[in-house]
């Protein structure tokens, strides 16, 4: 059965791309449950895409979330039937889902490595890359904390970094002006940097 795998492109295209289009329309139209139905579909697709990337594009050096999110959009949604806004909404959902995919993966890895020692604390210079997996869990935790008192900033950061949305797209997704997006990101990132650079003690903020 694997003689077929080879360098074939992703062939397990979802069975009903029309569903995603309709769900996006439902969601735009206020049906919140559409969001919940979209999430697992996109989760599955992003994971599949991520997994197949290696097989087809091992030469690519840095894969960015945007690449997967856009590709997933093309695969899942009937772009012809959707307006720009729906596309942004898709990206926005995909950002959340991408975060979940990566966090699930990081958790899984860190669970496997459990016993190898306690969690590494970040250096103050934000040298994130030293142990990417665990750091991502810290970022996730920090974003969740931020969301507790300022959901919009947390979301803006999520959209930017996990979904690769542009400032304009973030504005559309959150229903705020581009200028506001800029300010939200600036304050949010400053808070995030500070949060991540402090030693691991319960935060007193706010």
């Amino acid at each position, binding site marked *: *059965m*694997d*003689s*077929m795998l080879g360098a074939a492109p992703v062939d397990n*295209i979802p*069975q*009903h*791309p*029309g*569903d995603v289009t*309709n769900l996006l*329309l439902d969601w735009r*139209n*206020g049906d*919140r*449950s559409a969001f*919940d139905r979209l*999430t*697992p*579909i996109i*989760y*599955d697709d992003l994971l599949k895409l*991520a*997994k197949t990337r*290696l097989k087809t594009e091992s030469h690519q050096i*840095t*894969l*960015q*979330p945007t690449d997967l999110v856009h590709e997933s959009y093309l695969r899942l949604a009937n772009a012809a039937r959707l307006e720009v*806004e*729906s596309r942004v909404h898709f990206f926005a959902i995909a950002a959340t889902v991408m975060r979940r995919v*990566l966090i699930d*993966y990081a958790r*899984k*890895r860190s669970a*496997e490595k459990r016993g190898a020692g306690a969690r590494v604390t970040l250096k103050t210079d*934000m*040298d*994130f*890359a030293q142990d990417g*997996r665990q750091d*991502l869990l810290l*970022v996730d935790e920090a974003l969740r904390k931020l*969301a*507790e*008192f*300022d959901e919009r900033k947390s979301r803006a950061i999520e959209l930017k*970094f*996990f979904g690769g949305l542009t400032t304009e797209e973030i504005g559309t997704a959150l*229903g705020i002006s581009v200028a506001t997006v800029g*300010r939200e990101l600036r*304050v949010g*990132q*400053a*808070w995030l*940097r*500070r949060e991540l*650079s402090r030693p691991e003690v319960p935060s007193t*903020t*706010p």
Partner: protein
Amino acid sequence: MKIEHWRQIQDIFKRALELPTSERAEYVNRACGDDEALVSEVHSLLANDTGNTATLHALVASNLQELTQSSGCSEIGMRVGPYRLVRELDGGGMGTVYLAVRSDDHYFQIVAIKTIRSGMASPALVQRFRTERQILATLTHPNIGAILDGGDTEDGRPYIVMEYVEGQPITQASDSRDLSIRERVELFRSVCSAVRYAHQKLVIHRDIKPSNLLVTPDGIVKLIDFGISKPLVPELIPGGPSPTEDGQRLMTPDYASPEQLLGHEVTTATDIYSLGVVLFELLTGSRPYVVRNLSPAAVEKIVCERETRKPSSVPGLPNRTKKTLAGDLDRIILMAMEKDASRRYASADDLDQDLLRFLDSKPVRARRSTSIYRLRKFVARHRTATLMAGATSAVLAGSMVFFSAESHLADVRLKRIQTLADAAISDMTQKLQQSSAPVELQTSVFEGTLAYLNQLRQESGNDPRLLLKLSKAYSRVGDLEGSPVAASLGNTQGAISSYQGALRTAIAARNRLPGEESMKAVIEAYQQLGQLEFFSGSLREAHDHYQQGLTVARELSRQMPDDPSCNRLLAINYAGLGNVQLNSLETDKAVESFRTGLRVLGPDPNGTEDYDRTLATFYGRLGLALNELGSNADAIASYQRAIAIDEGLLRKFPSRRTRRSLFALYSNIVGTLAGREVLNAGKVREAQMYARKSVTLAEQLAAGDTTNVQARADLAGAYIRMGDSLLATNPADAQRWYRKSIALT
């Protein structure tokens, strides 16, 4: 308090940023007064203002990179019993199949090991998995992938060790070996033999398809993956599922039988059907129908209703192949694929024997009457459509004669015209909309009807009553072409132009004969246009049309203040406008529109299904708008009203539609209750209560659903809501629900 504090920090921080770096410290000290905590908060944020954002990008990218390189499979290299997992062969939703090696002093053996994905081992799944193992253990046949071993992993997941079948799907293998039709039939006979054997052991495979029929390099077919198989008599398998609890329908739509798609009882005849589909593809290189990219409803329609084409009629076949297929093989395949299970071959053996007869050039048993029988069935099913299509031409022809006779009195004539128009519109459009007539037929009937009505209109000198009828006809045609809320052909442009036709004629009617009826027609046409434009994303146009509709609806309501139907029309107009405003981010205006609509409609349910349903929708939409406005408490109150009304409706008039509406409401209210920053315990409990209701409802919907895809997605959504509602108080439980949701999809 906390939020207030954060706002203060932010404000000072933002203002400081606008100043040159050298002036910031002084400004902060001044702005914070003697609040030292505030000073240090702002300073520490400022200290972290500059920094490399690329690092977070890089972090995400490096994680992503690692994920792609890991193949998502952390279990590679793991030991399972005496085997070592080498790589992933196939990953279904819940299970994974690995290539594994046994390499010790005694053996070197390559096997396939199937196990449940780590973290997804729910008791039901474990149960099911053991069933599969048990089933497989009873099957020993040269054409069935053998089970070699089994056990439990260290973390308690059952696994199955199976013969590793290295081969190609039967269709590809036959192509690459360039097998003739006769050779393909011979190869296929061993598939029949495997299926017959499984059936004799009281096992139905339920997912027979080429990728489960592998041909080894030695040319032997192996039927693999009994992953969704089920024992015919559950009691025979210890711990097997009872027939009723086996609600999950997993299958491959391309090869699934009508009864599988409809969720009816699955029998050995189901496998016979799939055998027919596989044989069709094996012999023609095409599938009997293409279902990829179609909605579940469309798939169901094709598989369950549309006549299967003859294999020999597949376009592009070489003449010789066509000749070989025509006749016996056509009949054999179509008999295996009968939509009515009782008309298929009674067993895989019967199918096998007929294939043997074909090979021996003996007369096959496949019913010769099949085609006549099918034709009869077709006519019966499409009687309405066929008759009506006939009627159109008859009426058209008749009208020519009719209008040439000048001796009729004008009013008699008009009456008869109206009668004809009525018959043409109501019968044809309504009946066709419910029937399963092919699209082409529907379209031609509609075009005929419209042309006919236009002609009547001219003949009648634009009689306003006839104009009104014509307007209705246009509007129904529009519905059928592209209604966003009912079954339609999905032709939005066509629908818009039909609705515009409806509007034009309604306005013409109103100019000639002002009054309730013509005003209503005008309002309805505006609303239909607005609704369709709204659904297709043209918000500005939708807004304009709802506004124009509103002007007329207000006027009508003023003229007839006590008429419930006029008020309802006005209210619905407000609802449409509110929807558009909500999506245009004019949230405050949307709230106003919904509230005004509610005032017009009256605030309380009156016990009639239609009215109460509209009312629940209103409160639901209002809740949504309020939530978006940030008025949480009001939003929750509005949702609660909607829920109370819908729950009442469900008790009195249980329907799928109400269940779905209620489900959306539960989801929304949980989102509002659980999705906000600070929760008090009361709200968490309330969120959990609604989340549980939503799970119960989704489970009911899943149990009674015919296509299942939507219902399963709803169920997955409900699980996510359960997770959301638990996230604040019990993250571990929340995670379990999230996983449950992922396992479902």
